[in-house]
């Protein structure tokens, strides 16, 4: 190969208490697609933030196109031709595509005004050159998430970047959009760009990358040729041991209907209907998954079921009783468990002790408080200790540990312990493994399947289609607040579900 576009040599970066990068070396050849693979917290983002000038390394050197570079801030990175497509887009929603692209670099006309027309022509030209098919005059709020990502790409190309960093780019995309993104990456390579792809999804790496550097807990495990390395080997490098990707579970034995949602409509905080005329059933002994891209009404649906949000119309029946207007506490008492989407916002009082968090839903009744309203902290502590050992929650000071000081995986374990300990008839689970490592993910998946096997009804909402496909017995695809179709997970076709997630109804007959 013709030398390296990027060399990050012996990079060390320490945060208080954590070595995020320990002597990591990354070499990316000119005009290659190079993947960086690692679990959450492996140090991928830190490494890229260093390359992009957001952090300065404590140790190590960076060479760009063979010469030493000092990257102190993102402006330096931009000048060196490095651009980053962030996981969370940084776009002004009521601005047009072009306005977003030129933001900060507005071309001036002879009269000192912004030369929007000229910029639009340039954007259209770039869009054509790389096959992005972006309409320069469209407003950001009116285009799809996939298109918004292309605007981010254009933003970088407009600034003449020749090294593009993609940070978990497929997290927000439907399977079809992922395919399109991959062909865009190939096109960018064909046009001479160098690409770094940060991801934890092995399939994407196999599909598009040429070489792959694996990070684990801040260490560089190695760089391999993707073509000659199997997915299993990559997984082993990432996790450090053999990983079983298939969840082992028996066929479901569905019982009576536990949760019945009838033509539910829910408005979001802005007053628009986020869930529309949605009907869904969950039986005991089965896991029903709601598959969809983030922002298609999943959050509002969960809030309506659990009572955190109000319903506009329709009914929710739980064990045959209408709970549409029931309070949150009534639903808990009736036997509804909820593993919330955002564990810091809803799941835990971070400044409470662990044992106090473990009684967040049951503190108001014996044995934790008596009929006079006195708390029994001894009972709370021993309950805490029991759950800690039963669910293997790692906490430095046992039940007295503040929730804030625990790791994400253990925080999630604590929530799961609390909810499963309620032995609920219905478990509403949202994004249960977001941001967790493979060990914790396996554990949590197993617990959810166990609940199903105990005859509980489980409703799972996840933005990771893989998780839904692996874990669920039936899959309901949601798009724009409507259930587009429901299929059995057994033998389900990922493409078909992807199409439904994009709002295209399930075809009646397929060739």
């Amino acid at each position, binding site marked *: 190969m013709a030398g390296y576009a990027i060399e990050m040599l012996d990079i060390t970066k320490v945060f208080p*208490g954590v070595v995020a990068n320990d002597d990591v070396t990354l070499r990316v050849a000119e005009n290659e697609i190079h993947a960086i693979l690692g679990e959450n917290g492996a140090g991928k983002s830190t490494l890229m933030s260093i390359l992009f000038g957001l952090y300065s390394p404590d140790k190590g050197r960076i060479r760009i196109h063979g010469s030493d570079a000092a990257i102190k801030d993102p402006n330096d990175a931009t000048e060196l031709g490095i651009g980053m497509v962030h996981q969370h887009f940084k776009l002004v929603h009521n601005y047009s595509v072009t306005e977003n692209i030129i933001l900060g670099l507005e071309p001036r006309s002879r009269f000192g005004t912004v030369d929007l027309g000229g910029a639009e022509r340039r954007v259209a030209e770039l869009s054509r050159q790389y096959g992005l098919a972006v309409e320069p005059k469209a407003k950001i709020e009116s285009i799809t998430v996939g298109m918004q990502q292309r605007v981010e790409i254009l933003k970088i190309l407009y600034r003449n970047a020749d090294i593009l960093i993609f940070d978990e780019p497929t997290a927000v995309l439907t399977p079809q959009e992922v395919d399109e993104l991959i062909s865009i990456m190939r096109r960018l390579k064909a046009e001479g760009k160098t690409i770094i792809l940060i991801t934890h999804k092995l399939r994407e790496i196999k599909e598009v990358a040429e070489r792959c550097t694996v990070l684990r807990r*801040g260490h560089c495990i190695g760089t391999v040729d993707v073509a000659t390395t199997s997915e299993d080997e990559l997984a082993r490098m990432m996790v450090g041991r053999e990983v079983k990707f298939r969840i082992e579970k028996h066929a479901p034995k569905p019982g009576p209907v536990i949760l019945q949602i009838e033509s539910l409509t829910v408005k979001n905080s802005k007053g628009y209907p986020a869930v529309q005329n949605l009907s869904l059933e969950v039986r005991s002994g089965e896991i029903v998954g709601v598959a969809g891209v983030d922002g298609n009404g999943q959050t509002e649906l969960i809030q309506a079921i659990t009572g955190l949000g109000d319903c506009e119309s329709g009914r929710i029946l739980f064990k045959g009783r209408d709970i549409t207007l029931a309070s*949150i506490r009534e639903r808990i008492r009736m036997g509804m468990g909820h593993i919330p989407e955002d564990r810091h916002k*809803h799941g835990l009082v971070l400044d409470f002790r662990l044992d106090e968090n473990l009684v*967040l839903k049951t503190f108001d009744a014996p044995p934790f408080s008596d009929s006079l*309203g006195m708390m029994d902290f001894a009972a709370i502590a021993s309950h805490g200790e029991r759950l800690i050992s039963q669910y293997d929650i790692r906490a430095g000071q046992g039940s007295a540990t503040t929730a804030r000081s625990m790791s994400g995986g253990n925080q999630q374990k604590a929530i799961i312990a609390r909810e499963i300990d309620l032995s609920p008839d219905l478990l509403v689970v949202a994004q249960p493994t977001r941001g*967790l490592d493979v060990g914790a993910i396996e554990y949590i998946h197993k617990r959810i399947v166990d609940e199903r096997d105990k005859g509980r009804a489980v409703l799972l909402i996840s933005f990771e289609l893989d998780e839904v496909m692996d874990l669920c017995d039936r899959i309901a695809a949601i798009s724009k607040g409507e259930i587009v179709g429901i299929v059995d997970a057994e033998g389900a076709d990922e493409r078909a579900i992807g199409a439904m997630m994009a709002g295209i109804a399930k075809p009646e007959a397929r060739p």
Partner: protein
Amino acid sequence: MSPSGTKAVSTILDRVIASERTVSVFVVLLGFLCGTVLILAVGRNPLHMYEALIQTLTGFDLTRGTWNSRYIGEWLTASLPLILCGMSMGFAARTGLFNIGAEGQYIVGLTVAQFVALFGPRVPGLHWMLAVVAGGLAGAGWGGIVGWLKARFAVSEVVATIMLNYVAFFLSRYFTRLIPDANTYRTPAFPETATLSNRLLEDLTNGSRLNTGLFVALLACLAYWFIIERTRLGFSLRATGLNKEAARYGGIKVTKAIVVSMSIAGAFAGLAGVVVALGSFSYGRVLGGYDNYGFNGIAVALVGNSSAGGTLISGLLFGMLASAQPLMQSRQIPKEVTWIISGLVVVFISLRSGFRMLLEWRAKRAAARGERLVEGDGSE
């Protein structure tokens, strides 16, 4: 600085910032240090300030070698409304609310107590108790309105309480002036049965104004601790204060918690009003301006970390600074120094997060030098 010196400094800093309590103590000491430097800067002897403070606290006059327990009584009397208003602010803060309206709740409590004192049944023992209860309830109602507005209509409690402070003030003036024989600044004298004066406490403190309000404040403090730390209500209020969304998710009725919390906070401020009205005065006042106990309560709660014991101690501290003023002046120390010290203490305590950042920065630097490499525990 030598490496060992740096290490010692950071160890001390670590200790200080480790708990809210030590931060408060540290901050108060720092405030006094600044006050001392200031007195030196204006060419006076700072020892005189400390003499005045010692006299306030113990009654000993070190210059003359005399002892008078009246100073202790006056110190405690000055502290009572500060403690109660501090608890008003602190209780709301524990539920995540900013009760800037303790002043209004104080005025309402004070006014209602004055009315009960003048028009209530003149039965010894019962009369003042009735006034105490009525004043506390009035404060609770005034605070509760704010809680209800916030819970029902999402009105910011900061705005609502500030507005209601004015409403309380002018209503108090209006109604008090309607009392027969009231002039522009006072009503007729209270009957003996209504005042909180306590012969025993007066005798013990050589005729100071110390009164039964002392017991009211101590009982209130006990109630504060009990509710927050021991009861189901306290648990749900604390959960609401620390994470409203998680509390709601756990089945706690957050709207109810807000109303209850503001009511209890208002009751504390109302009691402060009663204690001042019937303890320090023998007649009803037509208020000419704010007494400012409510606002000073904010500082008291901040330094006391909104805990029962902390607020008690910090109320005594601010009470000491206030009642030491005349003694300082007689020793040629400008009394404004006490305000500067209280002000600095509040500023420093607000800098707590700054201290924390400093500590994190130090840890980071130490880690970068490789002194302390802590591997993650691998669970994430």
